Each structure stands twice: as C-alpha cells, then as structure tokens.
C-alpha cells in the first residue's frame, strides 16, 4: 500500500458561537486508504469534513493537500484540489437524468455533446464497476442508484479524495456491500476515501485506519487490525459500554391492535401502503424494518388518525379507529412519537421551550380557557433531571438544544402520558450510544408494563435484539413478519429489497 500522506489537517479549530465543534484536530489520510472517521453525533465529524470540503472556514489550523498548504474560500476551491464530498442528504435534481446531474454546475462549452458525455460517464462507471444508465431520470432511481450518481458526480469532477457522510444510513445491507465494493475499487486506484460513520461493524469491515472523535477532539487514530469493537466504543463514548440489549420475554398474547388489509394512497393517488395486515399484543414490541420511505411514516400516521385510510381497517381493543380524530385516538391511550430526519418536523414546536412543548399533549386536559403552566414547569424540571437533558433551562427554546436532547424531550413527554399503545419511529435517530441504550431501557420498561410497542427502526442489529417480531415493509407492502430471534440479517435485507419471505424460505439457496 502506498504510504504517502495525501491530506494533512493540522490543529483545526472551529467554533460556532460559544460551541467548539472542532478543537485542535490533527488528521492525516494516505493515498490508497479508506479512513473511517468515527464518533457519536455532535462529536464534530461532519464539521471537520465540511472544513475539508471548503464549506466552513476553520478559525485556526491549516490544511495541507499533497504537500501544499491550501486555504479554501468556497467549495469550488476544494473541488479544484480534487476533494469531493457525498452528503448524507443527496443533492440531486430529481427531474434531470443521471448525466445532467453529473455535469451540473460545471464550467464547459455552451453546447453539450450528449453522445460524448454519455461515453465519458460510461467509461468512468465501468472503471469502477458501477452499473448505471446515464440517461435514467433521478426520480426513477432507487436510493442506491442515487448514491451512485452522487459518487460519479464528484469523481467526474476529478476528485481523488472522496468523503462520504454516513453513506449507509439509507441503504439495505446488500446495497451497502455494493458501496463497499466501489470504495475498495477506489482504494485500488490510489484515491483516498474518508467515510464518516457511527456504525462500528461497518468500520471494522471496510476501513484501513480509524480516527475516533469525541466532543470535538481527535481521541486516537488506530489501525483496524490493531483494534476491536469494544475498544472503539470505549474511545467513542469515553467509558466502557455494555452493548447488549436484553429482550424481555413476552407472556401475554392478548391482541390490542389489529390492522387488516390497510391501504393508503397519497395526494397523487399512488398507493403508499398496500394490503397491510398485522396484529400487536400487549407487552409486545413489534419492529418495523424497511428502507426509508417504504410506508413506515404513513402507517404510523394512519394509526394515529393523521392519515386518511383508503381501505381496510384498524382495530384498537376491538374498536375501529378509522374516521376517528387524532384527539379521540390520543384519548384512548395511543401515543405516537415520530422522529423525522430533521427531528422537529412533527411532535415538537421548535421555537417554544420545554414547558410549552410538554403542554402540547396536556393543554386539552386543562379546565376552562386558561392554561396553568406551573405544574408543567415542575414536570419539565423532573424530565430534565430524569433523562439528563442538557439545556440552560426549561424555558429555553428546544431548537437550540442538540438533537439527542430534543429527542429526549419528545420521547419523555410521550412516555409520560402512560400510553397503552406506543408508536415510536426512529427514537434513537442521531442519539449517541449511551443515550440510545437509555431509550431501549425505557422501551423495555414500558413493555414490562404491558404496553404494546410498534417500533420503527433503522438499525437491523437493534431490531433483532430488542423486538419480539419484525415486520418488513418494501414499497408499502409487507414482505414478511418474522420472529426476531430466528431471522438473519441477510434474510431481512432481502425482504427489505422486496423478496417475499416465502421465496426466501422456499429457495434453498437463501435459507
């Protein structure tokens, strides 16, 4: 392997207001290496890479590329130096084709030689073993294909340093493997690949060296061969963490929720959920797996009365919820906490403080016209203490809290309402390891109280450990409901990609 240092970041410090996101970070990346940047949310990974890609200017420190000190004033300068970043959220124009997206923003001739362009892109794709149709429109693409376009886009611009920000979050296990193949090819070509992630198994699988960040500081840089998952966790969190989730055995079999043949359509009359049937018992955690956008959100909203049911039925304790208002459903003891990608879209009011956000589910129980905030203030203070929410005070707007703390406020409020059925979607999205395990414990606590839980999750490992059963959704259809203790990750991945459970079990090659 080529041991030449390609990128060197020295003493990078970057702060936002009073928050120091990066503090004196040193990082060196070699040619022909896959370097993982590991750290919990808010540890400064993205900030550091945004510095390297010219989006942020560091307060102090220097960037040395290929032996030359550089100063980026804009992303264009960084692209010129051969640095390309693939962001967590794709930045593609949906209505354009792959090749149009690839050349977008490029200086070039006024006229575009379509044929030559297709050839060029085809050649580049073949070199990396990528399978892509340059003329396919982005809106017709799967998530994996979109990511391929993003990667091609930066490579077409001549990037030799590729930064991938949490690239596997939206992929199925199979798509992840494909991505890893691409990364390995790039390593062979002598490129430097930096992957930002907080998934430890991926780090162990793909990277050559690992730099761990914690609270804005680079804690250590290690060779993969010389470390293990436990050591990495400890470095990341700052203390040893027990990584096992206990599964409580569920004795009761009393059904509380029964969904039958549920079909939902969106504004364009496209079916987003098709013939979905399942049931959920008291004291059971039913996991829902699926690639993002497979109908999970709509399913949650339909149960909570926020999404109009097209056909089918939802029965809660024997009574149909179809046509009931959200208010009536809340009163029956159904609670939903949906953590959207931006965390604030639903469930919390960003500009309001913790007290007023607790009020959201509580105010209708107050008598008369007026609102009494006093008991809620006490409740808020208890919540802050119990869940260790970091805030300057309960009267501080929640949008100024960090993501993890915002989530604690939301989940804390929902659990506080003593629900019988808890719908929780992505409750640990963006949380650090310690906080995630607190949340799993909280869910298990609810389970022990005979609360039925519908758990929409991203991390298959967690789903398999925490849940009793897992239901897999693909394009709005159920591809299988399986016993979480018996299923394998590969089987789940295939189901997420649309292969039905019967097929997997039937074809001996998979079983």
């Amino acid at each position, binding site marked *: 392997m080529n041991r030449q240092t390609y990128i060197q970041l020295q003493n990078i410090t970057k702060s*936002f207001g009073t928050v120091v996101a990066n503090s004196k970070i040193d990082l060196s990346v070699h040619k022909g290496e896959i370097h993982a940047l590991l750290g919990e949310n808010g540890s400064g990974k993205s900030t550091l890479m945004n510095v390297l890609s010219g989006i942020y*200017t560091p307060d*102090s420190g220097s960037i040395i590329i290929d032996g030359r000190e550089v100063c980026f004033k804009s992303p264009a300068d960084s692209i010129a130096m051969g640095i390309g970043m693939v962001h967590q959220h794709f930045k593609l124009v949906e209505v354009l084709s792959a090749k149009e997206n690839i050349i977008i923003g490029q200086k070039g001739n006024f006229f575009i030689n379509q044929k030559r362009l297709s050839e060029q892109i085809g050649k580049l794709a073949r070199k990396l073993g990528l399978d892509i149709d340059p003329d396919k429109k982005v809106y017709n693409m799967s998530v994996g294909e979109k990511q391929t376009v993003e990667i091609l886009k930066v490579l077409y611009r001549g990037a030799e340093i590729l930064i991938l920000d949490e690239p596997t979050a939206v992929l199925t296990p199979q798509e992840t493997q494909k991505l890893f193949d691409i990364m390995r090819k790039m390593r062979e070509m002598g490129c430097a690949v930096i992957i930002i992630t907080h998934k430890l198994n991926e780090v162990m699988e793909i990277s050559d060296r690992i730099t761990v960040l914690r609270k804005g500081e680079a804690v250590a840089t290690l060779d993969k061969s010389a470390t293990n998952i436990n050591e990495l966790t400890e470095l990341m969190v700052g203390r040893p963490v027990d990584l096992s989730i206990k599964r409580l055995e569920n004795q009761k079999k009393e059904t509380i929720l029964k969904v039958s043949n549920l079909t939902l359509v969106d504004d364009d009359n496209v079916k987003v959920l098709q013939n979905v049937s399942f049931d959920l018992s008291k004291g059971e955690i039913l996991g829902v797996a699926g690639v993002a956008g497979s109908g999970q959100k709509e399913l949650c909203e339909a149960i909570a009365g*926020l999404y109009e049911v097209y056909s089918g039925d939802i029965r809660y304790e024997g009574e149909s919820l179809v046509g009931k208002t959200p*208010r009536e459903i*809340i009163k029956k003891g159904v609670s939903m906490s949906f953590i959207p990608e931006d965390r604030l879209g639903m469930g919390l*009011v*960003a500009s309001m403080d913790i007290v007023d956000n607790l009020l959201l589910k509580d105010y209708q129980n107050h008598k008369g*016209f*007026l609102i009494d905030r006093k008991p809620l203030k006490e409740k808020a203070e208890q919540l802050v203490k119990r869940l260790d929410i970091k805030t300057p005070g309960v009267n501080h707007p929640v949008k100024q809290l960090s993501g993890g703390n915002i989530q604690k406020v939301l989940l804390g409020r929902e659990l506080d309402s003593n629900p019988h059925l808890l719908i929780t979607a992505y409750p640990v999205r963006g949380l650090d390891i310690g906080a995630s395990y607190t949340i799993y414990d909280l869910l298990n606590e609810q389970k022990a109280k005979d609360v039925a839980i519908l758990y929409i999750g991203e991390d298959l490992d967690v789903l398999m450990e925490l849940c009793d059963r897992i239901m897999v959704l693909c394009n709005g259809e159920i591809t299988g409901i399986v016993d979480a203790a018996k299923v394998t990750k590969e089987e789940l991945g295939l189901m997420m990609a649309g292969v039905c459970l019967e097929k997997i079990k039937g074809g001996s090659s998979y079983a």
Partner: protein
Amino acid sequence: MLRISKRTDLTKKQYIQLRLAAVIMALFTSGIFILIMGQNPAAIYFAMLQGAFGSFYGLRETIIMTIPLVITSLGISTAFKMKFWNIGAEGQIYMGAFAASYFALNHHDMPKPFLLLVMAAASIAGGGLWALIPGFFKARFGTNETLFTLMMNYIAIKWITYLQYGPWKDPNAKGFPIIAAFKETAILPGFMGIHIGLIIALALVALMHIFMYHTKKGYEISVIGESENTARYAGMNVKKIIVAAILLSGGLCGLAGMIQASGVHGTLSVDVSGGIGYTAIITTWLGQLSPALIMLVSFLFAALVQGGSYIQTVFQIPQAAASILQGMILFFVLGSEFFIQYKINFKKEGI
C-alpha cells in the same frame, strides 16, 4: 472576507443597543437631509417632539392616532402569529366601518349605548367576514393570502367610494359627495376630546396579552403558526382554529374601522382609514407580535407622524419632506432588524 450567520445568542442589552443605534443613525442621516434643506436639524427634532408631546393638543392628537393603530395591529398580530399574512387590514377596517355605519345611519333612534354596541358588533362581523373570504380560499384551495387580502382592500375601498358617491350620498350636502354625518346617538363618547376608544384599546391590549399567552386558543394559534403538522399531531382541529383566528383578526380590524368612523370622523368616508391598515403592519412587526410592545410602538409611530405634520406648519417645509424624515427613521429601524437576526463576521484573508 465577510460572512453572515444567524444569531442565537442576543442578549436584551445588545438588543436595546442595536435598536438605539438604529435610531441614532436615522437621526444623523436625516440631519444631513435637513441641513441640505437649509434647516437646523436639532431645531427640527426638538419641534417634532414638541409637536407630538409638547402641548395638550399635540398629545391628544398623538393618542387619537395611536388608538386605531393599536387595535388594528392587535388584529394583524393574531393572523401573523399563525403565519397567515393578513395584508388586508385596510379593507377590513373599511368593511367594519361600513357595517357599523349601516346601523348608525338607519337606526339612530335606538338608545345610544345599545346602538353603539350594535355598531361595534356589526363592525367586528364585517371585518371578520371580509377576512374570512381569503381565509376560506386559502384553507380550501391553497390560494396565496398575501395577494388575496391585498386585492380585497381595493374592493373594499371602491365599495365605500361607490356608496359615498352613489346610494349613500347625503341629499342635503348641496351636491358634495359625502355621507351624512352620524347623529349624536352614533358618536362615541369621550373625555377631554379623547374618545372612549382609548379605554377599548387599553382593554384589548390586556385581553390580547392574556389570550395569546395564557389561554388554550392562544396556545393553539402559536402552535399552528409554527407547524400545522405538529398541531394535527397534537390532536388540534386545525381548520377550525384557523377560521376562528382569522375571524378574530379581521374582527379587530373592523372594530378599528367603527372607532374611526364613530369616534373621529363622525361619518363613513373613503378617508376613514387613510392607510392605517398598512401602517399597522409595520407596527405589528416592530412590536414582535407582542401586545404590550405593539402598544408602545404604535404610540411612538403616532408621535412620529404627529411630529412630522407639526414641523410642516411651523417650518413651512413641504409635506413630502416630512414624509422623507419618517421614511428614513423607519428605514433604519426596520433595517436594524437584519442585525438583530443575523450577525456579520469579518475575517482576514488567509489563515
């Protein structure tokens, strides 16, 4: 290098400093303009203060001008809180005044307190319904309320013009296109030349403060303004709340119209509002949708206008020049909004 970023950490002290700096810069810049006109800036500023507060007459005029501004701003703030950009206060004022005038002109034989109450109720209904039309279309078809409410203003103004020149023209006015003056029973009572609208305005400020910050409905309106999805999620009946809030918004503006017609002009005319509905948008915004601040800002704004008209007569400067002074002061105060929202970082080249 210049970089602009959003502020999150503004203290009260910095806030006041920024606002003060804006006023000082406005006075300085306007001073240059006054010097060019050949006048002494200090004298002009002093005269403006004197015009607004220096005499009983001046103070009274300032207060009378403050009253409709406060009430209209309170109305607008209800809609703005919900992110319903009601630019139609002007039209709602006219329609409120129109509804009140109908009773004033046709039923003036009712007992005075009763008639005034009927007029107030009619004006609230008139303004409220006028605001509800764009509200309905927004809720039903997603039309743009900013344009819609603005267009409704022109319809309202032309409707009053039509009444004034047509069916409601006073036959005893020797051909002048005016509507007959209200009878005594339809005129708001007053004290030392200030009509009772002052009490109404003060009461409304207190009521709206309680409504916005301490009632369920007020809370619901704030939540909807932040995110309709969140409101739905919390089990609110979003459409119903929106309709109620728009009715309240237009209703308050309509009430301001009745107060102007009955307390100030003594009749309905196309001059009943004279732009209050637009000015109130500025005072609402500067008052940050907070009833107490709105009251303060409205008073200062009225003083600015009153002072401006005073210097016209005393220094014999044209009305346009006085308007320029008002405009400049507004420009700086509104401009300081940018520095309150964002901060500018200067950075040396090369690190």
